[in-house]
């Protein structure tokens, strides 16, 4: 295709949008609403996942050893734990450290109360590894492995927390996929309607084009451009709106519901938009392309 033909095709794409002003506006508006909802959900999911990740990082599995185990054997267990892909971090806590922590937690500054245990550490057999994971859903696999290790007496885990977080994460994932699929269908249908009207309006012109030797690509390209432009505009507008609203909402929640500040830590707008902008643009342009392509295949037999 010549450069002038490309320019002509793009111009015709815009002309199509202009000729079908009302239909195009309706498509852009509905597309914007769909992408806005998607963006809203995306921002909530991203924030929630960040919170879940943070919560996950606080959940640990603790491994206790058999009585009379040597330091070499403990070190070997540590090395084995370190090799596991599920493990992000592990710390050795000696019996003395465990006792120190316990003392501080339960006796506080009461030196006398703790003094009774001066030479007799009640947690003598409580040396342990505290293990943190990359993904909480891998906990049961890791626990099974750790239980099978020689020298391991007990593995403690917080199964309820792990399962709840993992289930909630999956639920959010399923809802996201569901919403995206519904939005995709609605938007494809809308763009298809607009392009169908465009084809009907330009029926005579298309007929003439065919008779004087226009290729399929030449006839179809302006309709593809039309769909893609509607998709693009329908994703840029809600992105701008979401950018403005996101910051305002964070500030508003922070001010009005200050008690939430300790529970919720919102991500900065840049972090959310780093991934939201490409996803929304690809979604918009993709839906526009798909909607117009399906329609011209169906209605434009050239």
């Amino acid at each position, binding site marked *: *295709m010549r450069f002038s033909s490309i320019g002509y095709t793009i111009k015709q794409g815009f002309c199509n949008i202009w000729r079908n002003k009302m239909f195009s506006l309706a498509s852009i508006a509905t597309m914007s609403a769909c992408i806005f909802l998607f963006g809203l959900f995306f921002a909530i999911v991203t924030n929630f996942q960040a919170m879940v990740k943070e919560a996950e990082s606080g959940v640990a599995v603790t491994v206790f050893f058999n009585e009379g185990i040597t330091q070499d054997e403990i070190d070997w267990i540590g090395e084995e734990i370190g090799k596991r892909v599920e493990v992000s971090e592990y710390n050795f806590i000696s019996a003395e450290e465990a006792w120190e922590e316990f003392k501080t937690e339960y006796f506080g500054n009461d030196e006398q109360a703790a003094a009774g245990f001066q030479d007799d550490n009640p947690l003598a057999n409580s040396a342990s590894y505290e293990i943190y994971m990359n993904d909480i859903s891998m906990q049961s696999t890791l626990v099974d492995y750790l239980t099978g290790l020689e020298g391991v007496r007990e593995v403690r885990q917080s199964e309820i927390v792990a399962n709840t977080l993992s289930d909630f994460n999956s639920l959010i994932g399923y809802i996201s996929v569901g919403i995206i699929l519904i939005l995709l269908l609605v938007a494809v249908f809308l763009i298809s309607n607009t392009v169908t009207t465009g084809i009907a309006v330009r029926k005579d012109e298309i007929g*003439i084009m065919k008779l*004087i030797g*226009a*290729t*399929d690509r*030449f006839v179809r390209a302006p309709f593809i451009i039309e769909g893609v432009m509607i998709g693009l505009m329908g994703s840029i507008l809600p992105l701008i709106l979401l950018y403005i609203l996101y910051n305002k909402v964070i500030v508003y929640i922070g001010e009005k519901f200050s008690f939430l500040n300790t529970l919720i830590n919102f991500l900065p707008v840049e972090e959310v938009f780093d991934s939201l902008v490409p996803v929304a643009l690809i979604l918009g342009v993709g839906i526009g392309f798909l909607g117009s392509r399906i329609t011209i295949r169906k209605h434009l037999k050239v």
Partner: protein
Amino acid sequence: MIKLEHVSKTYSAGIPALNDINLEITEGEFVFIVGDSGSGKSTLIKLLLKELEPSEGVITVDGKKLHTIRRRHIPKFRRNLGVVFQDFRLLKDRNVYDNVAFAQRVIGAPVRESRRKVPAILSTVGLAAKYKSYPKQLSGGEQQRVAIARALINQPKILLADEPTGNLDANNAWEIMKLLEEINARGTTVVVVTHNMEIVKAMNKRVITVQKGIIVSDEKGDDDEI
């Protein structure tokens, strides 16, 4: 230039629109195809444009057997044919210049070439002064001239005209026929489908008469060389 060998076309209703047509039109000829409404004239034009496929037989245009042309090569094939219709089929939202330049645009010709060729072809059809006018500002005859200019801009070897004078008064019809004759004199093969017998007689060209899908006569004109 155009050859039909045992060509038949039957639509889904089962009635044959064309039945065992054998016909040859040589390069540079001017041919009228006449017949009543429903005789199969328009079906013949559609077959030549490869808008329709024959039910039987072989059609050859400019040395190409049409049944061997792949779907994606049809646009390229049609660029060798200029087409003119009774209802002009101009783009109402574009002026005379743009309507003619549109045919160049469609085949991807450079804009520079259009700027050179469009005024020249508009002069040929006598509309150079009206290049800025829109179709609704022109008479029927003038609109048909624009359609002819558009059909000729890509220098086709064959010009097919389906009832080109059907919507015109006697004067305009005669002028359009004279224009087609001039185009033919420059070497383009011209095939005109019409039922205006007055003009056909006055032009004194080869006349093929079709009735109920069959060629009933093929008379050579006095000034035909073949």
